[in-house]
């Protein structure tokens, strides 16, 4: 077991950010940590790297306890951090340094010998695609470039366990695809990856396990397909329908909200397109347009909270 969290509780004043969270990440997994804004994703991650003090619970890293009942064992934590790569959300690096200087300082924190360090810096910068700008000041970088450097700094110690907080937020579609490739390659090298996001598409294709956190608790866990099926059952399909003339849905078993004179929103738990055709035709009308919308993650989250 790479990471085990048991009953983690974190209050910020009156706000309960984590409410007895349990979580396990196994060796070799790519674990997608999904949740809406404010669900407690960052709080979980910050607790794992020892940057905040939860009030209750236990954290084990690499099979060794680092946190128990409000206290970190700093020596064990430092040992564990040697094998961890962490990428924070909304962080900037030192503006006045270049990528090479930045990674050099980070490498020094791990006491990587000078010669080995420069080799590693080259390798990592090439991996994230910043080798061309290795001697430019970070202050002038675009958001995407800064994001890449944040990833690079988490890789400098060749970590066994990568913890990434919203690594794909702010990247364009090609950036996301590229990022997923990098994650896949790192996973093939044997690294365990744990990353958070509030967008379903981010965890698609690369995660073998997904955990959904809402209001400080894991609500769903498993592989992505299972979770999606459960999602759809909970939230249902939304159909936006336009007809040639007014239709009465009084006898229908679906939940229908009129959106206009001849426009309706219908929410169901399964696909009813065929049935709809017949229903509309039975009243002498025809369907002009029909849009079927799968629920967005946000909508599912909202349903789960309710």
């Amino acid at each position: 077991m790479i990471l085990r969290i048991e009953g983690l509780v974190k209050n910020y004043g009156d706000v309960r950010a984590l409410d007895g969270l349990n979580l396990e990440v196994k060796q070799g997994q790519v674990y997608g940590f999904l949740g809406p804004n404010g669900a407690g994703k960052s709080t979980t991650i910050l607790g794992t790297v020892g940057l905040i003090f939860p009030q209750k619970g236990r954290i084990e890293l690499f099979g060794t306890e680092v946190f128990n009942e409000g206290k970190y064992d700093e020596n064990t934590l430092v040992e564990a951090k040697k094998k961890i790569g962490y990428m924070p959300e909304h962080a900037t690096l030192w503006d006045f340094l270049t990528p090479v200087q930045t990674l050099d300082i980070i490498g020094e924190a791990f006491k990587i010998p000078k010669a080995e360090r420069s080799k590693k810096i080259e390798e990592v910068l090439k991996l994230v695609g910043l080798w061309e700008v290795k001697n430019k000041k970070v202050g002038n970088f675009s958001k995407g470039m800064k994001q890449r450097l944040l990833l690079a700094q988490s890789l400098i110690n060749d970590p066994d366990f990568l913890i990434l907080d919203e690594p794909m937020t702010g990247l364009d579609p090609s950036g996301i695809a590229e990022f997923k490739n990098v994650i896949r390659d790192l996973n093939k090298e044997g690294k365990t990856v744990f990353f958070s996001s509030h967008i379903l598409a981010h965890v698609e294709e690369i995660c073998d396990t997904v955990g959904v956190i809402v209001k400080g608790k894991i609500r769903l866990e498993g592989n992505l397909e299972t979770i999606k099926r459960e999602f759809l059952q909970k939230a249902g399909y939304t159909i936006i329908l336009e007809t040639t003339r007014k239709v009465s849905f009084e006898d229908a078993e679906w939940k229908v909200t009129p959106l206009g004179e001849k426009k309706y929103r219908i929410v169901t738990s399964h696909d009813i397109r065929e049935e709809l055709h017949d229903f509309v035709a039975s009243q002498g009308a025809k369907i002009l347009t029909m849009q079927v919308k799968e629920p967005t993650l946000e909508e599912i989250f909202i349903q789960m909270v309710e």
Partner: protein
Amino acid sequence: MMWGFKLEFKQNLRTKKFWLIIVIMAVLYIPSFYFMKSFFLQSGEHITNEAAMSMLINSITGMTSFFVAILALLIGATAINSEIEKGTLRIAMSKPIKRLHYIGGKFLAHCLVLLIALLFSTIVSLLGILYLGGSFTTQLVVDVFLLNMLLLLAMIQLVALGYIISTVIKSSNTALGLAIILMFVIFMIVPSIVNFLAIKNTANSPNANIEEMQKLQKEYTTKYLFYDPISQVKVITEDVSTTLSKNPRDILNVRYNGVAYAIRNNLTNFAHIIWLTILYLSIGFYRFVKMDLR
């Protein structure tokens, strides 16, 4: 510890704050020596070694007690919160570095930065005194060293006070504002009020004279301004030289006692600087070790 030190030192030498203070000190002090020189030339007075040393001590103390003090408080007040805002602290502390080692290294770097600012004012003052006709002696070297150490201690107290602000106030801008207000209210306005009271109370007493007033000022400063390291340093440096002439305008007629003598003579004030520094540092470090870095 060395890792945090190196990182912080590099960062500080790049900040505008530091260079701005250095430039302001240079711009204000270099012309003042020029005017003093022309004053001496006009009045035809000759500067004695004793007077030169006493002027040197006053010049360094005057320069640093304002500018370097502001620098110290500002460095301290934004030391931690600004790093949390930027996110660099989360990156640094996710590496295998202990919190106490990191803050310790940061503190050492701040000491070095302040020492550089102090040495700068010392060099400006030294060159100024040489320009006015003073000369180097062994005692001068020893005393300048002692004075710098004394001032450094006072500045460290301000940095340490800043650390507490920096761990309590999340926004670095608010902390900056508070530090500036503190600087003016607690370290400038309140001391003037205390001094004024001393003067007023001497004037009311039957045997009012300058010595009586100075005695009362010193007593009040020790009692009511123990939290102001600059006032404490000023009490100490008062005793570095004694004015011999009854005429207060006769600044060149002094007996020079030395910095070591002045410290020995004012151990209570020296102790105030030390114990508060230790207290502030302990609180600041403790809070940093126990705080959420988000």
